């Protein structure tokens, strides 16, 4: 038996545009069924990397396989096995939802009878059954996005690429798109590869790679990455703060201090610690808050800058273009 390739395998992948190194020799393995994310500021090379994996752009150097097929030598095979939802909208707004899906199915050579069934299923899945015969022109941003995700799934790909799936959408719609993606994962045997520059969205992934200036800075589960950069912060309100601080030192060997009227201290795993705290502190606790380090903290630790600052410095023009494309 030959070795079973992971859903995505990338080795030494490089892409240069003239003098600019968009992707700087990255390595990566994404397992089947995994939800994997590229997190990084605009201009970090996420989209370029995805384009190479989708066979739209050619790598300058390195190799990549997707669903066991080589992106350089088996272009058509790769394309049959992947679904792509681009950062910019790619629907024909004069066509109806159904026509957009039909167009896709025909171009992907799906058997006709299966295509008919599948269109109905996909519309149901993304909650657009009622809008089947409406031109996309009349759709809201969120509806269009859902339709695009549905379209990406129409031909039953092994790997679904979502490039900034929620860019330009309002927070509520963003949340609902992620709900759809979550449902999708439960219902389908599929690997999802997503890029985002929203920290909170990266949390939905099983594992993420943080990208900065064309490099993968670090890869891991969101939890592991956060733990790697520091402890959780616990803040409690008690009836006797001084006694609490003393008790924390004596029983748990923790240094605590009062900040903003609350007893504050750091601990490795806050969630696991809280039950012990209640059981063993011996002082009544009124409220407790556990704050985990954010992925922004992770980005900061690994790159020396916050993501927002990096974007301001490097990605402003990219951002503008993305926004303009969304309009």
């Amino acid at each position: 038996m030959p070795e079973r390739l992971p859903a995505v395998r990338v080795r030494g992948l490089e892409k240069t545009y003239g003098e600019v190194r968009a992707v700087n020799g990255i390595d990566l393995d994404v397992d089947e069924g995994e939800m994997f994310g590229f997190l990084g500021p605009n201009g970090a090379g996420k989209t370029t990397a995805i384009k190479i994996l989708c066979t739209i752009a050619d790598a300058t150097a390195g190799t990549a396989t997707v669903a066991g097929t080589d992106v350089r030598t088996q272009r058509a095979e790769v394309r049959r096995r992947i679904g792509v939802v681009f950062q910019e909208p790619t629907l024909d707004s004069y066509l109806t939802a159904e026509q957009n899906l039909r167009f896709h199915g025909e171009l992907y050579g799906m058997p006709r009878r299966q295509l008919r069934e599948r269109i109905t299923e996909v519309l149901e899945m993304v909650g657009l059954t009622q809008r089947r015969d409406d031109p996309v022109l009349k759709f809201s941003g969120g509806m269009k996005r859902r339709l695009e995700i549905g379209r990406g799934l129409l031909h039953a790909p092994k790997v679904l690429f979502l490039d900034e799936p929620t860019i330009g959408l309002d927070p509520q719609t963003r949340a609902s798109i992620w709900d759809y993606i979550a449902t999708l994962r439960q219902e389908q045997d599929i690997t999802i590869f997503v890029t985002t520059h929203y920290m909170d969205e990266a949390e939905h992934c099983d594992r993420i790679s943080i990208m900065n200036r064309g490099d993968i800075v670090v890869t891991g589960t969101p939890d592991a990455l956060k733990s790697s950069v520091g402890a959780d912060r616990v803040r409690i309100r008690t009836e006797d703060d001084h006694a609490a601080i003393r008790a924390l030192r004596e029983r748990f060997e923790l240094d605590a201090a009062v900040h903003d009227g609350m007893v504050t201290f750091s601990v490795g795993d806050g969630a696991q610690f809280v039950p012990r705290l209640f059981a063993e502190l011996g002082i009544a606790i009124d409220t407790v808050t556990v704050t985990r380090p954010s992925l922004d903290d992770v980005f900061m630790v690994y790159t020396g800058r916050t993501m927002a600052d990096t974007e301001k410095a490097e990605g402003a023009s990219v951002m503008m273009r993305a926004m303009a494309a969304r309009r």
Partner: protein
Amino acid sequence: MTTLETVRKGQTTIAPGGLAHELRATTMVWRRELIRFRHDRTRMLAMLLQPVLFLFVLGTGLSSVISTGTEIDFRTFLFPGVLAMSVLFSAAFAGISLVWDREFGFLREMLVAPVSKSAIILGKCLGGATTATLQTLVLLALAGLVGVPYNLMLFLSLLGLLFVGALMLTALGVLLSARVKQIQAAMPLSQLIITPMMFLSGALFPMANLPGWLAVLTKINPLTYVVQPMRSVVFDYLTLPATARAAFNPAITWGAWTVPLGVQVLVAVACTAGLVAAGIAVFNRTD
């Protein structure tokens, strides 16, 4: 087992590629042009109004100063030219709509599919040519008003020639949109190319007794080989004295050789095929 179950089990539902698959893709891209055309009634009307103005306002106005010397109405002469003109502009417009497709992202959806770019560009060209030709049907219906007889064979020949001309100009538009990425630039640029092509095709004036340089330009213009056969076909269905025929539908000559109608059509078809091939080639190299 339903499709969804198949899909959940991770079985790929895509049939392997091949010619049949490419053909389906071409057909679908062609159909999309027709669907969009149906929705675009405003454009259809606007595109129709211009040739009607040319035919009835310019044609009528000029017929009072141009003494045809015979019983032929200047508007009868103008009719095939105006038909060609209307089809050319809408065809070129259909071709450069690829710039819109790129701007609104749909081109990307097409280009990431597991089919050749050739299949997609071919569908785009055929779709644009079909819609442009369909648009002339209303204009054709007005034939009787300018003394052109309603004859099925005549109309079919005209439609055939119009389709060839439409395909030529759609391909030209596609070629243009491979290079020009902004619609603001593509629109005037296409006008800049089509307008002289139209003037030099004999669509609006007879090509008899032209000065040498102008005669040469008309002969190297591929559109001439669409417009002149159209006029010949129309004149075949009219009873005209030979002098009128010579003045308004002079034969095309290459040196001393009078180019027969069949060869003229062949030249048009060859130029069209060449432009379509060029459009496909350019897109295969870019994007």
